[in-house]
């Protein structure tokens, strides 16, 4: 193992070793938490400018290119702008809840990083039930969204919050079911152990779960559900600008609005990180001769790739309608996730070789084709006929 791989772990151990014995637990906790609190907000700043420039290019525009070199300092300008704006609380709002909602969202957005292995031996808390912990915390973000929507005393924010809760609860089911397939295969709820199971190679192929038929289907389902969980386009109904202006954070301005924004992106990174951990082998290298690159670089590379995917999808797809959203969740995502679980079980008990590849692929493809019929629009667009009064 190269020292570059473990540079942060060794550095932390060294600093902890230097500090007085009484303070060592505190220093250790501090050195674990503070980097997480620093790195991901910086990634957020980077992502906002990446997103705005990427969307601009998709729409044949330049995107922000004024602040700093090619607009790279745009997040600084945005931060200054949001800090200098007036913080407005509606007169009839529930002041305490209105104030707490962005804080709860932000706190909840940071907590799941505790169980994400960012690199080899780089995890804040190696819980035995890490995946369960992640989802348990993730469910609190629905509460904060509803707090924001309810306390604002605005019909649009309440509508947005209602939509958000309906959507997040609906998509949590396929999200959990698709990760259950991985938990079954790995035989553990610990994120660290799940990554270690995927870190080996057969020939040049890594043991990532995404490279199995059920893992591939599960990964697609997971990412679709993750998009819906983080309220990103095309599932951005809770904040659909054209319908309900800004949804649940309509009554937030200035820094509180920025906190919501930050919380939303942190949630996106966290769930992408879980997707990487479950399906894309976490910090492990994609090819055996690339293992000399430090593990944490691989994690962040995969994270950026997924974020670019999110931006790409956002620039491509229009927003869904509420009934389409619910139909998709319950008529397609949920049964498909159950099929993935069955396929993962079959994969485990079938003998290794071409047979199980064939069986699982045909099973999943068949289920996909059959379920897709259910969500596709039946009535084809035909020439409209008019009947006039006699």
């Amino acid at each position: 193992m190269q020292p570059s791989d473990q540079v942060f772990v060794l550095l932390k151990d060294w600093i902890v070793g230097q500090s007085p014995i009484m303070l060592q637990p505190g220093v250790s906790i501090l050195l674990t938490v503070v980097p997480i609190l620093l790195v991901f907000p910086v990634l957020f700043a980077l992502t906002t400018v990446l997103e705005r420039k990427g969307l601009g290019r998709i729409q044949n525009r330049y995107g922000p290119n004024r602040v700093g070199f090619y607009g790279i300092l745009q997040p600084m300008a945005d931060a200054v702008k949001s800090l200098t704006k007036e913080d407005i609380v509606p007169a009839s709002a529930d002041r305490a809840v209105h104030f707490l909602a962005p804080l709860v969202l932000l706190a909840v957005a940071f907590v799941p990083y505790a169980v994400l292995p960012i690199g080899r031996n780089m995890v804040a808390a190696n819980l035995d039930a890490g995946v369960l912990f992640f989802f348990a915390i993730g469910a609190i973000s629905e509460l904060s969204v509803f707090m924001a929507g309810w306390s604002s005393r605005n019909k649009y924010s309440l509508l947005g919050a209602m939509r958000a809760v309906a959507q997040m609860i609906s998509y949590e089911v396929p999200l959990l079911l698709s990760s259950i397939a991985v938990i079954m295969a790995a035989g553990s709820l610990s994120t660290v152990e799940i990554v270690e199971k995927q870190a080996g190679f057969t020939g040049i192929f890594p043991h990532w779960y995404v490279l199995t038929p059920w893992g591939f289907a599960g990964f697609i389902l997971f990412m679709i559900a993750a998009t819906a969980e983080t309220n990103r386009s095309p599932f951005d109904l809770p904040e659909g600008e054209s319908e309900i202006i800004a949804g649940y954070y309509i009554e937030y301005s200035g820094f509180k609005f920025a906190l919501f924004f930050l919380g939303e992106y942190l949630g996106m990174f966290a769930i992408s990180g879980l997707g990487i951990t479950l399906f894309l082998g976490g910090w492990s290298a994609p090819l055996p001769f690339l293992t000399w690159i430090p593990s944490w670089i691989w994690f962040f590379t995969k994270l950026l790739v997924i974020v670019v995917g999110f931006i790409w999808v956002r620039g491509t797809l229009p927003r869904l309608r509420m009934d389409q959203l619910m139909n998709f969740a319950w008529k397609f995502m949920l049964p498909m996730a159950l099929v993935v679980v069955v396929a993962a079980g079959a994969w485990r008990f079938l003998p290794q070789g071409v047979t199980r590849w064939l069986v699982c692929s045909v099973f999943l493809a068949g289920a996909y084709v059959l379920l897709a019929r259910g969500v596709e629009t039946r009535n084809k667009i035909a020439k409209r006929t008019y009947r006039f009064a006699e």
Partner: protein
Amino acid sequence: MLGVGIVKGLAETARNFFGSFVDKERLVTVQFPEERLPVSESARNFPFLIYDGDDKEQGLRCVACQICEKECPPRCITIEKSKDKKPDFVGKQQFYPAVFDIDVSVCMSCQICVEVCPFDAIRMDNAFELSTTDRFAALLWSKDKLSLPNEHYLAIHPTEAAEVEARRAEEKAQAEAKKQPPVAK
């Protein structure tokens, strides 16, 4: 088949994304302060007063008839007539505006003042970078700021200005012809 449309859409946006780096024709954005589109001849924003020659005071065409002040729908024009008179372009003695103010924060750019002016003295300018940090004094334009040379009018609205020039030349010639006979005798 579910998902085919999504893949097609993703391919389309990817083509746009990479195309915008390769093909400059795709980027239609004009980077404003550095690059500018030519201003159309028919562009109009706020009125200005025309003066002939070099002297702002002497050449001002306005005779303080106050028609524009009365016609202005939002009533943004304030005119005070002078006590004395000065000769206009045909040599006739006319009043002139001692004060001519336009409150451009009130002006709605309707161009009615231009249409009613019998002396071709007020016309629309096409300047649009007019932001100030002062909401009140800086938006009340006085006679001094409003007066612009005839050359400016010829430059921004050439077709319209040519008509005005022709008409004024004719008027002046007629006035000269009236004056001529007594001199000839």
